[in-house]
């Protein structure tokens, strides 16, 4: 480790990046609800400074890609100091810039989106806290610090999903998200403890003594555990559990679509761009631990998630839910990339995806806002006319997501498919990924046709003439029509374009969605080599690499096929009424319903995991009531009256017969339950007597 004094200012003060948003959160937590402007200003200002600092850190990493760490003593346990610290390497630098930049844009967007919410201040408090914790995850050089920030991230996710907690769906979704991710975090915690037990440190890098460095990893690889697995593999898999929970990998993906109950900026920030990427980042961070077999698991889980979620997305009707499943699917791609191709491949897709998925979510938010909070795509249609900016931006995001040639998603997804194709273990993930890409293009085309193209289907919102007269609604948004249902003339409100504060982030993000891919093309793999700490030159010759161009052609073909299929089903004939069955539903109603019901995963969990939990709880209650409670009663009984026992035995002997005896025992139990009468002093007395008995036994035993 270098001496801190010799490091540049930004490395020594890297902690400021997460600390500033956290401080902003702390301050705005103390503000009154009416201090809206101040809390938003604090959040955006702190995020802006964080972005500047992140850019400085990025420049520093560009100048010198060597990994630099700063550690400090945190707390003393007995004789040992627990050390925490932060690090700066290209991986962290890229994530820092991404998180703070996307976060800043989303903060600005929220200004407009949340403008009418009563709890505006609280919202910005939570968002800042989230951003701070997320940045903390990124720079942590200690699994412990990472875990702490990770849990804060989970907490804020819970708070933000349940932000509108008065809606039961939101409250339930928040709980679901929290509990589901906790399941994964349990694995992470166990892995962390095990790692500490094995290496005695939780610092990632500490000049040779960190747990990810050669000596520690070699030691863990040499050490075998159950089923012939290396310890490092086992720990890696446990840590992957946490990552899978946070990144919504099958089978822990169920919370992510439900999390769309939160406000849209939350969906964009947390559940598309940053938090879900934390899992991918975690796997990338502990990559040295992930040996061959662990990576196989990662790759397979990723591939299965990718196709699984893509299938479900085909049949959803909620605009945000489609995007949510799309996110799950793309996260699967990232994991697949990590598993088959290494850190750079997965991370590249993570970064590009963060931008275009944030764009899509914010676009969806804009659409929802414009359609007076309706999220059902069947009620939309033809919005291109009313919301041109949103449409253009959304189209960019959609093409990027589909992997349309030359858009950002094309390069990153292609890199994954290329890596999967070249994977030595199995070709299965490659084919799964390819089919997933087809489905992606298909469902996104479907969404576009439903939302923006075709004609307007909404049973349009009527407004009162009074509101019109009061000029609450701009004149160009209203139109008098004859209602088809009642025959009366009424005034309807058109969907309207969102204000500039909402659309500007969209435009910025759209630019990135188009162009960002060019930093990682095969010809100029700047991103990949930056992560590896090398420099890259422009060399079109690399396209000539065996199998690369054909593969690109194939993947382009797949995308075009998906787009074509989408047009075939949804674009050929305009969708006229909101109640029309889906084109796919007409052909394959059974499959469509299964997909629309999310392949019954929630129901499956309902009858398995949750039922098991219920059963266990019931069993525990039964155990408590009958076994332990009975034991307490018996003790009480022994203390207060041997007489009843005598009587019971007497009757048992006199009357004879096993059945009679059973009945007596039951009666005795009922009698004994009288001693469980809620009088504290009875309990205390029993405890005291037990103390006497125990002490007497101990003393008697020691007497000799």
């Amino acid at each position, binding site marked *: 480790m270098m001496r801190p004094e010799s490091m540049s200012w930004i490395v020594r003060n890297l902690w400021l990046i997460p600390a500033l948003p956290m401080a902003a959160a702390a301050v705005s937590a103390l503000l009154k609800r009416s201090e809206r402007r101040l809390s938003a200003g604090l959040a955006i200002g702190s995020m802006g400074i964080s972005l500047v600092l992140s850019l400085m850190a990025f420049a520093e990493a560009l100048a010198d890609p060597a990994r630099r760490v700063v550690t400090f003593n945190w707390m003393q346990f007995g004789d040992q100091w627990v050390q925490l610290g932060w690090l700066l390497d290209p991986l962290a630098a890229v994530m820092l810039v991404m998180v703070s930049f996307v976060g800043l844009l989303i903060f600005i967007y929220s200004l407009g989106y949340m403008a009418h919410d009563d709890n505006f201040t609280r919202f910005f408090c939570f968002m800042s806290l989230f951003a701070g914790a997320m940045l903390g995850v990124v720079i942590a050089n200690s699994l412990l610090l990472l875990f702490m920030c990770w849990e804060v991230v989970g907490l804020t996710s819970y708070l933000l999903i349940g932000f509108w907690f008065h809606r039961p769906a939101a409250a339930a979704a928040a709980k679901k998200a929290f509990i589901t991710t906790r399941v994964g975090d349990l694995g992470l915690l166990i892995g962390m403890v095990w790692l500490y037990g094995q290496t005695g440190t939780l610092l990632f890098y500490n000049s040779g003594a960190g747990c990810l460095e050669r000596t520690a990893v070699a030691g863990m690889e040499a050490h075998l555990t159950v089923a012939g697995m290396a310890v490092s593999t086992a720990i890696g898999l446990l840590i992957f559990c946490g990552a899978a929970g946070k990144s919504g990998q099958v089978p822990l993906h169920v919370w992510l679509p439900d999390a769309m109950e939160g406000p849209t900026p939350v969906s964009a920030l947390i559940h598309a761009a940053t938090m879900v990427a934390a899992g991918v980042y975690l796997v990338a961070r502990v990559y040295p631990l992930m040996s061959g077999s662990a990576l196989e698991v990662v790759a397979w889980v990723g591939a299965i998630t990718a196709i699984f979620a893509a299938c479900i997305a085909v049949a959803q009707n909620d605009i945000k839910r489609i995007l949510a499943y799309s996110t799950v699917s793309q996260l699967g791609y990232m994991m697949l990339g990590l598993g088959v191709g290494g850190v750079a491949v997965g991370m590249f897709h993570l970064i590009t995806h963060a931008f275009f998925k944030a764009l899509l979510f914010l676009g969806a938010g804009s659409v929802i806002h414009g359609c007076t909070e309706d999220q059902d795509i069947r009620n939309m249609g033809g919005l291109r006319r009313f919301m041109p900016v949103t449409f253009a931006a959304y189209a960019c995001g959609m093409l990027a997501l589909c992997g349309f040639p030359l858009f950002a998603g094309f390069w990153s997804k292609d890199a994954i498919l290329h890596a999967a194709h070249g994977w030595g273990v199995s070709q299965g993930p490659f084919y799964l990924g390819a089919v997933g890409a087809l489905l992606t293009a298909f469902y996104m085309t479907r969404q576009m046709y439903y939302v923006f193209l075709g004609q307007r289907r909404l049973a349009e919102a009527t407004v009162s003439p009074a509101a019109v007269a009061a000029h609450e609604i701009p004149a160009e948004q209203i139109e008098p029509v004859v209602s088809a249902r009642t025959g009366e003339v009424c005034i309807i409100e058109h969907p309207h374009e969102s204000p500039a504060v909402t659309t500007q982030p969209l435009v910025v993000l759209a630019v990135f969605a188009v162009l960002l891919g060019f930093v990682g093309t095969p010809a100029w793999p700047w991103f990949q080599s930056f992560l590896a700490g090398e420099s890259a030159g422009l060399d079109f010759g690399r396209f000539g690499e065996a199998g690369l161009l054909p593969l690109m052609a194939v993947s382009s073909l797949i995308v075009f096929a998906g787009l074509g299929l989408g047009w075939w089903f949804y674009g050929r004939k305009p969708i006229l009424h909101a109640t029309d069955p889906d084109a796919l539903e007409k052909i394959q109603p059974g499959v469509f319903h299964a997909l629309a019901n999310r392949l019954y995963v929630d129901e499956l969990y309902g009858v398995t995991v949750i039922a098991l939990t219920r059963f266990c709880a019931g069993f525990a209650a039964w155990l408590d009531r009958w076994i332990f409670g009975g034991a307490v009663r018996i003790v009480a009984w022994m203390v207060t009256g041997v007489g009843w026992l005598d009587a019971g035995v007497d009757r048992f002997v006199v009357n004879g017969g096993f059945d009679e005896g059973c009945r007596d025992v039951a009666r005795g139990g009922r009698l004994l339950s009288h001693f469980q009468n809620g009088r504290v002093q009875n309990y205390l007395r029993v405890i005291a007597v037990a103390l006497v008995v125990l002490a*007497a036994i101990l003393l008697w035993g020691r007497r000799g």
Partner: protein
Amino acid sequence: MTLPFLILAIMTLAGGVAAMTMRRLVHCALALVVSFAGLSALYLNLGAEFAGLAQLLVYVGAIAILIVFAILLTRGGEGEPEGAFSPAGIVGAVVALAVFAVLAWAVETSGVARAGVTVAAPQITMREIGFALMQRYVLPLEVIALMLTAAMIGAVILALREKRNDSAGDSGAAQKQGLRA
């Protein structure tokens, strides 16, 4: 066993016994104070100056006052004195006696009654205690601080909770009176 120790022990025990047997609750509380004060003097006698003074400050200055307040707020100060002796009471006393017998037996058999040597009182300055609290035991200290904060908030919430209902009841009663008038 020195004379001051004996006197203080008797004072402590007498206070305790009185606190547990007197009929009026306020008398019990005052006897309890005597017991606490005796105990703090015992600490001082044993050379634990800081613990003794802390005992005095916390128990006599705070807990006793709290108890007294609780007695007055639950109308224990003027209500009918409760009878201490009942069948349950006798059982309780017997159990307590048994506990004492066992404890005394334990002390007797453990060997400290015979083997111990009297060491000189350790000279502990406040400074050493301060350093111990701020260095070796700083984590427990912080935890205690957190816990005290939590307890304070909890106590306030508990004591406040039904007040709103009460005042609502009061205003309701006032309304009724107003109607009647």
